[in-house]
């Protein structure tokens, strides 16, 4: 780190310190600083890093709680790599049959694969092994959860719009890889639960028309269970997918830096600037704190909350199944879809497309296909091809918000369906009626929740408008609008397209598309999004400084 990067170092002394202490405090940093300086210079002479690092440290990140979710995902991944690396030292990816003789008494003398035995050993005989295993699994659960919530944040605020479509697609790929790797992870252990999950994965692969048997054979090395599946999954889980995830994370973050973070409008936040905390030191400290707190929560979960107690499930036997076996939460929707889809399959000329193809392969394909395409679909529909750096508030985009809520409702019902049998037994209902109710819900819940979300958006907009009318200061407005004609070339010679600069007045959404076309937005009065900021959008007084 170059010394130049330390901006206005804060006084090291504290009030009330003795003179001697103060002197010591002054002397000590000086000596260490000399060393740092020499190291920094040594590196700079070889790399020329000072100006680059300085620029990096001066980067500005807008503050909003919702921007932290992506960071949590990143930090969960860091914990995954650290704990996972520890596990690799002890895990044996082998399907060799052995007899268990470890310290967990109920399994002694039981025939099992080496993979399963090593996972049991990690749990009982490796010091700190169980905590690491459980932290790893909890981190996987959190990783996918944080990615999904992060995706929702990006979706509902329109952060995927131009120029960020590319990063949206990188993000969707990361989600898919995270889900795959999670599944691959808990399938490694070769316990009864993972075996059942693998059997289902195998069957879903088989269901693919024409190529299914080939794909299944190549993936599993033959017919299920296949002699090599555990070692293959291990390579996929600890090398292949993590490497790709790391690469894509780098691309993802580099794009965020390059394109600069989006921000909500208000308080001097415009399309042509980014306002927030600088990386050094405030943001860096906060973010490092967030990493450690994320890791702390995962450590607490890893130590105190049991997850995936494989010693209770027993080793995998193809003829056995543990009743009410539940996959990790992020696979629940797939399991639910498999339950709800009726036994409809296509047959013609001796060929068939088996039923699971539709709820598993087709649904997943359509889901992720639509996710990839969404930025382009929306831009096409709204004819909005402008660059956007200011975020939408969900209420200002009722159609998008309603669609998003409806989609979420669909997947929530599917996920709930993944435990339909548990629901039935818990509430003493017949499994048939629960299934029927869920089949109705999966079709109706999206419609109902979509309509409710849409109405709510309109309602909130009306409330904002009323509040604004109540608080309007015409002089203020006129002043600020005249001060900075919207859409003009802004400071620093950076020319931003006029339409991108203008904020839109809230209106009924029906006309959303036409409005964008007909009215040059630059003409509009900049009423903007200040309502939620509680401040006056333009703050003419702030500009005096």
């Amino acid at each position, binding site marked *: 780190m170059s010394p130049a990067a330390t901006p206005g170092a804060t006084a090291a002394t504290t009030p009330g310190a003795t003179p001697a202490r103060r002197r010591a405090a002054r002397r000590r940093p000086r000596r260490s600083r000399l060393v740092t300086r020499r190291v920094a210079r040594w590196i700079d002479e070889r790399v020329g890093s000072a100006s680059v690092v300085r620029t990096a440290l001066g980067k500005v990140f807008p503050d909003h709680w919702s921007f932290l979710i992506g960071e949590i995902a990143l930090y969960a991944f860091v914990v995954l790599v650290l704990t996972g690396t520890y596990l690799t030292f002890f895990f044996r990816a082998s399907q060799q049959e052995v007899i268990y003789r470890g310290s967990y008494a109920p399994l002694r003398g039981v025939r099992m694969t080496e993979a399963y035995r090593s996972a049991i050993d990690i749990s009982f005989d490796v010091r700190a092994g169980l905590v690491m295993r459980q932290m790893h699994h909890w981190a996987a659960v959190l990783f996918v959860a944080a990615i999904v919530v992060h995706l929702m944040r990006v979706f509902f605020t329109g952060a995927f719009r131009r120029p960020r479509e590319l990063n949206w697609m990188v993000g969707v790929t990361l989600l898919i890889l995270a889900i795959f790797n999670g599944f691959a992870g808990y399938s490694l252990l070769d316990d009864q639960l993972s075996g059942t999950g693998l059997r*289902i994965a195998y069957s879903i692969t088989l269901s693919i028309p024409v190529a299914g048997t080939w794909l299944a054979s190549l993936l599993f090395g033959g017919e299920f269970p296949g002699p090599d599946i555990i070692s293959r999954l291990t390579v996929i889980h600890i090398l292949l997918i993590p490497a790709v995830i790391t690469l894509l994370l780098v691309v993802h973050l580099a794009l965020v830096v390059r394109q600069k973070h989006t921000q909500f409008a208000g308080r001097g936040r415009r399309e042509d600037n980014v306002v927030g905390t600088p990386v050094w030191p405030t943001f860096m400290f906060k973010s490092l704190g967030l990493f450690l707190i994320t890791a702390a929560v995962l450590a607490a979960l890893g130590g105190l909350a049991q997850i995936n107690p494989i010693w209770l499930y027993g080793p995998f036997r193809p003829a056995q199944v543990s009743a009410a076996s539940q996959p990790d939460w992020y696979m629940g929707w797939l399991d639910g879809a498999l339950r709800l889809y009726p036994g409809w399959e296509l047959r013609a000329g001796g060929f068939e497309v088996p039923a699971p193809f539709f709820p598993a392969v087709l649904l997943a394909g359509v889901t992720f296909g639509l996710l990839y395409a969404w930025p382009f679909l929306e831009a096409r529909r709204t004819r909005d091809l402008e660059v956007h750096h200011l975020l939408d508030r969900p209420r200002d985009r009722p159609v998008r918000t309603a669609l998003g809520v409806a989609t979420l409702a669909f997947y929530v019902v599917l996920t709930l369906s993944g435990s339909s049998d548990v629901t039935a037994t818990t509430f003493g209902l017949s499994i048939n009626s629960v299934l029927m109710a869920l089949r109705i819900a999966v079709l109706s819940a999206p419609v109902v929740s979509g309509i409710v979300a849409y109405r709510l958006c309109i309602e909130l907009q009306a409330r904002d408008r009323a509040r604004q009318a109540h608080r309007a200061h015409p002089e203020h407005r006129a002043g600020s609008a005249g001060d900075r004609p919207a859409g003009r070339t802004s400071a620093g010679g950076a020319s931003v397209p006029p339409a991108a600069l203008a904020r839109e007045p809230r209106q009924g959404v029906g006309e959303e598309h036409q409005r964008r076309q007909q009215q040059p937005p630059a003409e509009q009065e900049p009423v903007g999004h200040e309502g939620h900021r509680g401040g006056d959008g333009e703050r003419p007084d702030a500009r005096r400084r």
Partner: protein
Amino acid sequence: MTSDESPSGAPQRATPPHGGTPPHGGTHPQGDTPPHGDTPTGSHHAGRAGERSVAAAFALSMAAALGLAVVYWRGGQPQLEGTFLALALGGLGVGLALWARYFMPHEDVEEARKPIASTEEEIELFREEFEQGERILTRRKLLVRLAGGSLATLGAALLFPIRSLGPRPGKGFKSTPYRQGLRLVTSDGRPIKAADVAVDNVLTVFPEGHVDEGDTPTLLIRPSGTNRPRPGREQWTPDGLIAYSKLCTHVGCPVGLYQAGEHLLLCPCHQSTFAVLDGAKPLFGPAARSLPQLPLRIDAKGYVVAAGDFSGPPGPGFWDRDRP
């Protein structure tokens, strides 16, 4: 990380990047109250309280890390390890966050956004340089084509190793080891006599020598009701014994539950239900097909043996399952 700020790598930090006055921000805006109260110039009282809480967090972290080391030393204990690790990490994290909160600047800083796309000139320059190189290449048309061709050929050749990943999906997918006369055995390899299966009971069995293979698990049932055999299967149920594949035709879970009263088989995975007396046809749930039935015989010594393979490939469907 590269500097995308300006070609010269000139500092952009904190200072308003443009000539004019910023609407908001700047490193040290006088008279602006930062959102979080205390700053380097904040009141002494808040400063001391802040320092105390940060120090406490770091001290807690240190103590917990020591505790963790002691727990390891003494042999380890999962709950304590987790707790101490959480406190050690959390104390450090909270300390850093509080530090940032109490003693670091919070006023907003502004950075200008420049258009991301390159300027026309830059694009033009790039194009020129690129095309210059391209012209050198395209002068040798034949070589370009040959190079492309050899790359494509190599690419195609490199696809072949994928073939090594698994055998050709042949007859194995459609048949099982069951053969005429092969005895049924339990999971510990014991052959079965007809009398071993009580009324309304069910046993999981395998073809002898193929216990616990992927496609062999079989259910041997002696239902109390009368079987309604499908045409051609009248002889498949000697002595009232019926055998079906245990693998669900949905996605292959072992069909684990037998409800003797209603003569139903239930799959625990997605609750498909099969009628035992009606050729195990699916009554409910997502399965589309009946469980394949195994023709049975009783051999001369009274053992239950197979009279052939299943009536169809066991387990889930696939593209050419019904083709010979």
